[in-house]
């Protein structure tokens, strides 16, 4: 044992060896400024480029369905991908400041209400992937985080998604994005609180509470330099944009089809304000569906452009990305069916109310 102690490095956690950027500071700063300027220039000119491409280069007729669809596609696809890249990069850096371990430490022992608020806010910034739902759930509930607070986190993490927010901002403006953020957080807080009050611990699989969660002796707790953080941002872009771009293109192509071929106001008849049943139908259809946020937003845009009511469309979007059949299947490992049903129903109800609220107010 003694030999081992002598040979270990003095620091408790070995320093991370990350292939780093490694350029001199001035060079890096100039590169960042140049990249940002280039990005902005391209972004500003996308619309005119799309018009030029469709009508000059391809020689299509103004007003034809195909031209409409093509113009939409050539404009929106690069635009969405560019927005996505810059946002995922930024959020990757923000997330380097948060780990689930840190979130857990903040939440453990907080009473409900305050805990629900914190958990919902932290859900936005803590890195989360649905395959980690089970270890995360167990880790939280076995270390002093109340069940309702854990649910607030589990609701906000997938639903109040930075990808969704920035795309909403880029396509619809800050008001819609802020609306989505505010109502998403409200649903997470209130639904989590309600589930907590219902005292449903008996419907958590018994073995969960018997699980021994080790202390988070995480090698990742070593402090990160800015170089590390930028590298994490770049990894996030490679990871997320690399995985999501086919869905974005497919979603935009679908949106382009709707944009070009579905008659104006067609959606108004089935998803418009006067169709009161459109909100519950949108929520019920959306719950089992799963799409990542990037793919569904172009569809949302096309639907809105064709006269669908904002509340109905937002409700549909929240239901699709906030709840999904794959997620329920994963959670079945730790939750019994009555609790899963309650979870989906409470969140679904919240989404429903948000949908109606906006149809009335907007």
């Amino acid at each position, binding site marked *: 044992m003694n030999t*081992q102690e002598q040979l270990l490095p003095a620091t408790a956690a070995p320093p991370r060896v990350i292939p780093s950027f490694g350029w001199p500071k001035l060079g890096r700063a100039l590169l960042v400024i140049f990249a940002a300027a280039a990005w902005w220039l391209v972004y500003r000119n996308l619309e005119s480029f799309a018009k030029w491409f469709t009508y000059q280069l391809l020689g299509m007729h103004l007003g034809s369905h195909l031209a409409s669809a093509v113009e939409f596609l050539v404009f929106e696809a690069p635009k969405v991908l560019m927005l996505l890249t810059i946002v995922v990069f930024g959020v990757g850096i923000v997330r380097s400041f948060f780990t689930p371990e840190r979130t857990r430490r903040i939440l453990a022992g907080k009473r409900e209400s305050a805990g629900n608020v914190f958990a919902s806010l932290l859900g936005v910034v803590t890195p989360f992937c649905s395959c980690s739902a089970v*270890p995360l759930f167990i880790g939280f509930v076995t270390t002093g985080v109340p069940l309702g607070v854990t649910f607030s986190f589990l609701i906000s993490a997938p639903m109040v998604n930075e990808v969704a927010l920035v795309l909403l901002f880029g396509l619809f403006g800050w008001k819609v994005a802020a609306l989505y953020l505010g109502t998403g957080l409200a649903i997470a807080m209130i639904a989590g609180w309600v589930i907590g009050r219902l005292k449903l611990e008996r419907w958590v699989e018994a073995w969960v509470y018997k699980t021994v969660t080790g202390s988070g*002796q995480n090698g990742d707790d070593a402090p990160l330099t800015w170089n590390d953080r930028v590298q994490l941002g770049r990894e996030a872009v490679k990871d997320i944009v690399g995985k999501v771009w086919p869905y974005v293109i497919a979603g935009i192509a679908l949106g382009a089809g709707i944009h070009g071929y579905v008659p104006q106001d067609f959606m108004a008849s089935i998803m418009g304000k006067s169709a009161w049943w459109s909100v519950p139908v949108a929520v019920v259809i959306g719950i089992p569906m799963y799409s990542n946020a990037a793919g569904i937003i172009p569809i949302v845009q096309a639907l809105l452009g064709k006269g669908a009511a904002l509340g109905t469309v937002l409700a549909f979007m929240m239901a699709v990305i906030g709840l999904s059949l794959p997620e329920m299947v994963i959670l079945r*490992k730790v939750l019994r069916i009555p609790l899963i049903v309650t979870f989906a129903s409470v969140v679904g109800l919240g989404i429903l109310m948000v949908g109606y609220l906006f149809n009335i107010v907007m």
Partner: protein
Amino acid sequence: MKIKVLGTGCAKCKKLYAEVEKAIASSGQTVELEKVEQIDEIMKYGVMMTPALVIGEEVKSSGRIPASSEIVSWIASNAASMPQ
């Protein structure tokens, strides 16, 4: 040296396992590699984000797939610190 890859079977966990196998091969060390999929075993390490990499009972990373250079250097430093 014992290395464990913790994960419940999603694509990322399989990718990490493959990366670790490659790193072990290139390091030339004798390593016992184990894939841990049982959730109660995973929780003993206090890990909340899978996939996770454990070398010599110490959690080196969780929730991400480290660069292969990182994995190789961890294996090397772990080998160096083991009693000969």
